[in-house]
């Protein structure tokens, strides 16, 4: 609960800093560009490592309007999923076994390029469909007793997304952003006896857009 409060405060402060950096009359930092800063709620799909939904993540994205409807840009996001594993006995090797409870965490940090097709770019509600492509760094960790076992993995990342930017005053392009996404990454790895083969997620993003 305390940690959630900290995340909320951090997100609000960051959003405030972003907004403070923008003059109302010149909402766009760069002409024909856009920026999104989002909090995200991520839901792992299927049986996976640390497959529990959580809100420990954010997304940052910026792009340029190459045509009135099409943008290209870059993104970086991060997310942590945490799952408690009740006490169980696992065979570590042919000669050793361990009984313990654990906490599994999966930290993902995808980054790369993004593209969007936008509609109604002069209106208050500006929907779009997009695609993100890039690399995904993921760290699998098992915490038990006073020990942390982890493995760093890398994979290819792709994520289709639909969303809408909401600008109460479209001429200033300063408003809100809501999106839903699916993501797939080719990361694979193993910690203790727990393995991961690909990462599939579904999630929503809520944030600011300018």
């Amino acid at each position, binding site marked *: 609960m305390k*940690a959630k409060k900290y*995340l909320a405060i*951090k997100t609000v402060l*960051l959003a405030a*800093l*972003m907004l403070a*950096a*923008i003059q109302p009359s010149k909402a766009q*930092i*760069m002409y024909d560009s856009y*920026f999104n800063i989002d909090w995200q709620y991520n839901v792992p799909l299927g049986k996976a490592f640390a497959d529990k939904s959580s809100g*420990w*993540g*954010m997304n*940052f994205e910026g792009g340029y309007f190459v045509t009135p409807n099409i943008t290209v840009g870059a993104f*970086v996001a*991060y997310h*942590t999923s*945490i799952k*408690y594993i009740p*006490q169980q*006995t696992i065979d570590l090797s*042919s*000669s*050793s*076994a*361990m*009984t*313990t*409870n*654990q*906490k599994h*965490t999966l*930290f993902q*940090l995808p980054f790369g390029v993004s593209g969007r097709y936008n509609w109604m770019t002069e209106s208050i509600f500006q929907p779009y469909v997009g695609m993100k492509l890039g690399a995904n760094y993921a*760290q699998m960790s098992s*915490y*038990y*007793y*006073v*020990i942390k076992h982890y493995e760093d993995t890398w994979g290819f990342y792709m994520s289709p997304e639909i969303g809408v930017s909401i600008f109460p005053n479209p001429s200033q392009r300063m408003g809100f952003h809501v999106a839903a996404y699916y993501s797939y990454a080719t990361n694979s790895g193993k910690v203790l006896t727990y393995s991961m083969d690909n990462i599939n997620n579904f999630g929503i993003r809520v944030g600011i857009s300018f």
Partner: protein
Amino acid sequence: MTVKKLSYLMIALTVTIVSCQKDPSTSDLHKDYLVYTAYDTSVNFSGFNTYYIPDSILLMTDESQDVYWSDEDALEIVNAVVTNMNAYGYTRTEDKETADLGIQMSYVKQVTYFVGYDNPYWWWYYPYYWSPGYWGDWYGWHYPYQVYYGYTAGSMLIEMMNLETGTASQKKLPVIWDSYIGGLLTNSAELNLTRSLQAVDQAFEQSPYLKK
């Protein structure tokens, strides 16, 4: 002006990303004990019949001399090992000289000490551990398999030595089974004892190869 604003954004983004990984709360992990067991796969345990186990547990502390734990609680924990060994078909003997197996128990009370399997000679330098000489004409310990211990306060170690080994000339006593138990130090002495007894049972339960 635009560049300045962008630099603010980049600084804020960098700070956020750097501090972004969420570490889980580990308080739940202390709700239960940990039991790790390992053994020498080349040993046929059914060939052993008798074992010797002292009635006390060595305390690994920062005291300047060996301290043994031998009150009723300690005896109850030792008896839990005895019960499990007997249930697996072994016979306890009071004659250390003729016993096939030796079992020693240690409890880490105050120190924090870490050791890796790639440094097997730490036993030589750890001042208040069991002396190999306790078991006979031995100069050290020998692990025929990889072990990795993380010693923290509230940990217990149960080790089984092959006293019948034919490699006595090497003067290193082989530890053929060991169990590391962690998480035994809570604010409740009763809970600590309960956990210790449960953990001893678990150590044998996950070591079915010991059964004769």
